[in-house]
Every structure is written in structure tokens, then in C-alpha cells.
């Protein structure tokens, strides 16, 4: 084919234009120019930072993670952390605790307020509107400070503060009854996992029976019954799973024996593998039946980018941050060690316990006893702040989602003679959920990020601890990197979870 075209006279036109008029080259040059500018700016800024830091006698790096920061934290799993890393870890746990509790309660309250806003009852409807409009138009920080100052003005803690040792409040915080995980919980959880498989099996069997016979076999009730039976039996015989702890112990030992270099090579290999795999798949997708891949400039760029990305990752693993691999090894070994202790043998208590709060007076002053679930002043202020603020937004999401289901759907369900509850369950809810999920996930993300406002009331979340550690050691830059990684990881986790549900919902839709 090309042989014939070459003899045609028109091909004399076929010449490359000067580079500044070639669309591809111009596009390339522009992008490479932009990239060069960005890289130059980053390089320049980092060199400045290096100069400035050395001028102030501060070294960069993450060595502060293993040095005693000499700080006290207001609360957390460890109030006098021995190392900087431990301090940040305490902050992370506090943040996660706050975010998880916040997400749980904000969802429930938001759901109710959202439904209230759809109510036919004028009073309920208006109350819902007032709640939403007030709370979402006042900045969260102002709300947190306001709740904090209101709590701080409660009376001093005394033996008769609150309601008869059910709820106790004072300017030291709030204490409520708590249900807690007791010693036997982890073995019981193993039992329940097996129970879940059994319940799943029961569900499948019953729905198959329903398909075959057409009779109503209530698969949900059946599987729930199985799970309940397992829960009850497990309550008494869970210690038989004490050996699970040893498995985690072996894993922990195994991980701690891995040499640092091996992990570095492994990580690099993963990076190379991912990049190579991606490039291979990409080239295959561009392959024409004619044989060789036909790449546009965009495609070439993508391939180069994937390669450069892998290179940068390897560079980071070996040179920029060699401590990373040992950190991964140590922390994952620690993790399994913790699991070993949790699942370990010799735990004979029940899976759960419950207790009411109490006030004790060990010395001169009254304080909350360890039996109740006690929220410190800071925690309570941020907690109420993020829960109420996010609930107002979630209420709008819920209301919007339900209103988004077309009226025709309800009419269609009615015309089929479906009962109201069945129509709600099988027609309205799946469609509403599909609209609700993505913005709901966004609200969860916002809530998680908003926990950082805890610094305003002195609750030891990651940002507050990081700020203290950073000021103490001068490693603000490294702390900032850890913040970024942590919050990005949280965002990623939440979006993965939300996406998972979304995919499930799409299956429901089919």
C-alpha cells in the first residue's frame, strides 16, 4: 500500500512543518515546559528550605519519630508518649475515635432530621428546617467553641451531678453508661465469623428453596436465627479459640525477621510490576488488528509517565526515605503482636460488659471513675460540633435523595398492588440510596477532616499533637507530610468503602 502511494505526485506535499507549527510538538513543548517549571519551582523551594533549615540548625527527616518529644497529652491511649511516633499514633487513634463516633451519630441524627423534613406534620417539619438552616449556616469552629464554653460553664463535678449515675455532667466533661468489649470478645468474634458463613449458607439455601417452591421461606429471618444461635453458643464456649493468638504471634515474629533491604527490594519490585503491568495492558488495548500498537502522543506520554512514576517510587524507597521500610516492618510486626495479645490464650471473661458511670474522690478533688464512658470537655465539644453540623448536611442529602425518586415510581408500585412497606423496600429505597451514597460519602470525608478543628478546644487529635511535636522539635515539615499521608489515607479508605456500597447498589438496581 505504501509503495503505491509514494509514486503519487501529491505526496510531495508530505513534509513536516516547522516545529513551532506542528500541533503535536507545540502540545508537547507546552506540557514539558509546564512540568519543567513545576519541577524547577519544587526543586528551588526545597533547596531554599534546606538552606534555611541548616541556617537555623534544624535537620529534616523523620528521626524525631523515635525520640522522646517530652510532651504530655490531655487524653488518649497514652498520655505520656515515650517517642514522637508514639505521640502521633495517640493523636491518630484519637482522631479515628472521634471520626468514627461522629460518623455513626451524625448518620443517625441526620437520617431522622431528613425524614422529619419530609413529614406532613407542620411542627416536625418546621423543627427539622430550623435545625438544618441554623446549624449549617454557622461555622463549625464557632459552634465547637460555643459548645466548649457552654460545657466549661457547667458546675463543678460532685457526687450528685447529673442523673443518678446514669448520665453525669460537669465542667470536667460528660460521662455516660458504656458497653465495652471484654476479654473474651476476640475469641467470640472468631466464632461469629464462622457464624456469619453459616448464616450466609442458610440464607442461600432458603432463597433457593423460595425459588424452587415459590413459598415464602423468609431467608433473612432464617439466617438471623442461625447467627443468633451462634452468638449464644459462642458466649459460653468462645475460649476454645484461644489458639488463634499463636498464629498472629508467629506472623509477628516472622515479619520482624525480614531484613530491611528485602522489603525495599520487594516494594521496588511491586512498583516495577505495577508499572509494567499497566504499560502492558495499555499497549494491548491500543493494539490494532494490523499488528503493532498505534500510539498517539498522548499514549506515549502515558507510557513514559508510568515508567517515570515507578522510577520515582524506587528512588523514594531507597534514597529519599530509607527509614520507611524499617518503619513498615516494625509497625506491622507491632500490629500482629497486639493481635496476638488480644486473641491470646488465657482469656476467660465474657465478650461484652456494661457499666454505669461513677464519681470518685481519690484525693482532694472529685473525678470521673473508670467505669463510665467519659468524654472530656474537648472531646465533647468537638463531638457535638461535628455530629450536629454534619447531621444538618446529611439531613439535606437524605431529603434530596428521597425526593429524587420520581413520583411515577411510587405510583407504578401502587398500581402493581405492592404493599407500602414492600414498595418502600424494593422500589423507593434502592433508588434513593443510589442518589444518597456519593454525597453521603463526601459528608463523611468532610467530617473526618473537620475533626482537625479539635485543636481549638485542646483535644489531642493528630493535628494538635502534630503541632505540639512540630513546635517542640522543629520538624514542622515532616509533621505536615505525616498529616497529609494520614488524611489522604482516611479519604481513600472512606471513598473505597463508599464505592464498594455503590457497586453493590448498582447490582441491586439490575
Amino acid at each position, binding site marked *: 500500500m505504501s509503495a503505491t502511494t509514494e509514486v503519487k505526485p*501529491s505526496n510531495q506535499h508530505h513534509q513536516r512543518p516547522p516545529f513551532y507549527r*506542528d*500541533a503535536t510538538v507545540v502540545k508537547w513543548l507546552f506540557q514539558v515546559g509546564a512540568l519543567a517549571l513545576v519541577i524547577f519551582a519544587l526543586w528551588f523551594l526545597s533547596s531554599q528550605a534546606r538552606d534555611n533549615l541548616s541556617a537555623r540548625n534544624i535537620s529534616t527527616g523523620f528521626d524525631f519519630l523515635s525520640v522522646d518529644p517530652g510532651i504530655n497529652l490531655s487524653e488518649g491511649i497514652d498520655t505520656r508518649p515515650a517517642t514522637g511516633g508514639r505521640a502521633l499514633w495517640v493523636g491518630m487513634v484519637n482522631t479515628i475515635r472521634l471520626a468514627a463516633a461522629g460518623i455513626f451519630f451524625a448518620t443517625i441524627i441526620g437520617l431522622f432530621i431528613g425524614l422529619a423534613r419530609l413529614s406532613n406534620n407542620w411542627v416536625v417539619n418546621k423543627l427539622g428546617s430550623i435545625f438544618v438552616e441554623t446549624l449549617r449556616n454557622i461555622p463549625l469552629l464557632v459552634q465547637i467553641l460555643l459548645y466548649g464554653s457552654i460545657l466549661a460553664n457547667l458546675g463543678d463535678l460532685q457526687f450528685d451531678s447529673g442523673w443518678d449515675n446514669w448520665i453525669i455532667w460537669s465542667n470536667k466533661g460528660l460521662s455516660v453508661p458504656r458497653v465495652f468489649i471484654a476479654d473474651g470478645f476476640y475469641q467470640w468474634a472468631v466464632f461469629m465469623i464462622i457464624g456469619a458463613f453459616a448464616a450466609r449458607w442458610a440464607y442461600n439455601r432458603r432463597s433457593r428453596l423460595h425459588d424452587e417452591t415459590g413459598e415464602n421461606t423468609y431467608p433473612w429471618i432464617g439466617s438471623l436465627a442461625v447467627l443468633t444461635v451462634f452468638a449464644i453458643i459462642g458466649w459460653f464456649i468462645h475460649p476454645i479459640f484461644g489458639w488463634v493468638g499463636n498464629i498472629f504471634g508467629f506472623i509477628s515474629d516472622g515479619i520482624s525477621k525480614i531484613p530491611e533491604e528485602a522489603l525495599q527490594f520487594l516494594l521496588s519490585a511491586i512498583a516495577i510490576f505495577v508499572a509494567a503491568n499497566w504499560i502492558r495492558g495499555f499497549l494491548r488495548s491500543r493494539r490494532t*488488528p494490523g499488528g503493532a500498537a*498505534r500510539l498517539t502522543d498522548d499514549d506515549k506520554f502515558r507510557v513514559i509517565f508510568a515508567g517515570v512514576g515507578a522510577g520515582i517510587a524506587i528512588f523514594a524507597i531507597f534514597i529519599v526515605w530509607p527509614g520507611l521500610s524499617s518503619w513498615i516492618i516494625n509497625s506491622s510486626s507491632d500490629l500482629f503482636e497486639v493481635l496476638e495479645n488480644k486473641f491470646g490464650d488465657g482469656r476467660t471473661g465474657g465478650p461484652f460488659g456494661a457499666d454505669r458511670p461513677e464519681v470518685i474522690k481519690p484525693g482532694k478533688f472529685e473525678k470521673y471513675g473508670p467505669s463510665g464512658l467519659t468524654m472530656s470537655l474537648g472531646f465533647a465539644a468537638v463531638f457535638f460540633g461535628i455530629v450536629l453540623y454534619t447531621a444538618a448536611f446529611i439531613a439535606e442529602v437524605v431529603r434530596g435523595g428521597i425526593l429524587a425518586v420520581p413520583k411515577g415510581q411510587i405510583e407504578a408500585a401502587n398500581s402493581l398492588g405492592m404493599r407500602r412497606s414492600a414498595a418502600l423496600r424494593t422500589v423507593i429505597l434502592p433508588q434513593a440510596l443510589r442518589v444518597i451514597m456519593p454525597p453521603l460519602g463526601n459528608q463523611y470525608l468532610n467530617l473526618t477532616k473537620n475533626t482537625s478543628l479539635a485543636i481549638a478546644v485542646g483535644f489531642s487529635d493528630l493535628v494538635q499533637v502534630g503541632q505540639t511535636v512540630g513546635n517542640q522539635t522543629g520538624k514542622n515539615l515532616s509533621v505536615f507530610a505525616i498529616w497529609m499521608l494520614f488524611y489522604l489515607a482516611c479519604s481513600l479508605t472512606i471513598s473505597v468503602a463508599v464505592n464498594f456500597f455503590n457497586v453493590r447498589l448498582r447490582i441491586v438496581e439490575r
Partner: protein
Amino acid sequence: MSTEAANTNRADMIVCENVDKWYGDFQALKDVSATIAEQEVVVVLGPSGSGKSTLIRCINRLEAHQQGTIIVDGVELTNDLRNIEKIRSEVGMVFQQFNLFPHLSVIDNVTLAPKWVRKMPKAAAEKKAEELLEMVGIPEQAEKYPGQLSGGQQQRVAIARALAMEPRIMLFDEPTSALDPEMIKEVLDVMKDLAHGGMTMMVVTHEMGFAREVADRIIFMESGEIVEVGTPEHFFTNPTEDRTKLFLSQIL
């Protein structure tokens, strides 16, 4: 493959030689060669997905072909920015979905390109636009917005917009497919006037009446290939290829 030129004495406006185009795995154009002379009206027929639209979109460089040569009015379509600019302002295009700019009034739609690409003074551009709207039969709609017009009127505005650049070639990509039946005629009438006025036109359409009446030549495409080229009489009465016969039997 028949490559006879209908009018050898006229200059070639569009020359396609061995053009290939792929979308990923899918080959949309296979070794397409065609020549269109000045003032010639060529209708491209074929079943959907046969590459008709892709061909005329390549001629306007809305899509880039990957192999072969396309020369429009003596200018080869390459990556050369200057050539692309030149071709775009010499080739007018009318789309199936009109693609009028909804946020601009009719008159602004028509004058936008003359003002900013041809660098025409505003007054001159507006005068020209009024003439064109007169020509397509809707001079009274100049101040309205596209959303306020019927489909047929919108398509006629789209033709006026393309003509405002004083193109030497007009490409029509199924201009009547998105129209209600009663509006098709008003658009086809404008196109006929244009053809009789000596415009070089390349039309992808399913309007067989239009093809028979106006076309100088008909190109029949299937699965990305040019199957048959000929005059309307030859094509409708005595096609040579089996695939053409099959196509005609299905639609006539």
C-alpha cells in the same frame, strides 16, 4: 474501484488517498481514496457505522487520520497548525445535532467566526449575517436564541453560520436526521439552492430523493471502505456491486 473523475477540467478540491483510521481496535476507514472536484456535489451513502461521518470529519480534521493523505484545496492535512487553521476557515461543516451555541443569539452565532477568525469589522459581519439569514429564509429570527427556534430553523441557522466564513467547501453530516419530517424539506431546499449556486459539497445523508436530484456523484461506503462510486442514474438503476444492490433493496 472506480476512480473516474466526473469533471477532469476542473481543479480538485478534495483529494483523499489511501486514508486509514482506527479507533483502538476498530478500523473506521480502510484504504479510502476519493477525489472531489470544484463545484461538484457528492453524496455519501451507506448503512450506519460504515465510516461516512468519519470520512467527512477527517476532511475537516475534527478527527485525525492515521495513514494516507488528505489534501483540501491544495493544502495537505498534517499536524501543521497553520494548515489546520487554513482548512477550518475554508471548509464549512453542518452537524446532525445542529450544535448551535445556546448562550448566543442567532446573529451572534453567525457573526462570531467572521469577527474573530476572519477579523471582519462588526458592522460588515452583521450585514453579511443578515444577508445569509435572508438567504436561508429566517431573517426575522436574528435576535432570538437557538432554544427558541424549531429544529429546521436551527439547522438553517447552522448552515448560515457555516456559510458566514465564506467557505469554498461545505460538508454536511446527516443534516436532516435529527429533524421532524415536516422540517426536512425546508433544510433540503436551502441545500439545493446552495448546490445550484455552485458550492462544492459533500453530503452524508439518508435522503435518497435529494441524492438522486442534486448529486453529481454518489459514493457508497460500507464497513469503512468505498464500495462503489458513480452517477445517480448508474447508482440507482444499475449498480455493479452486490453490496450496493443489497443496500438499495433494503431502503428503497
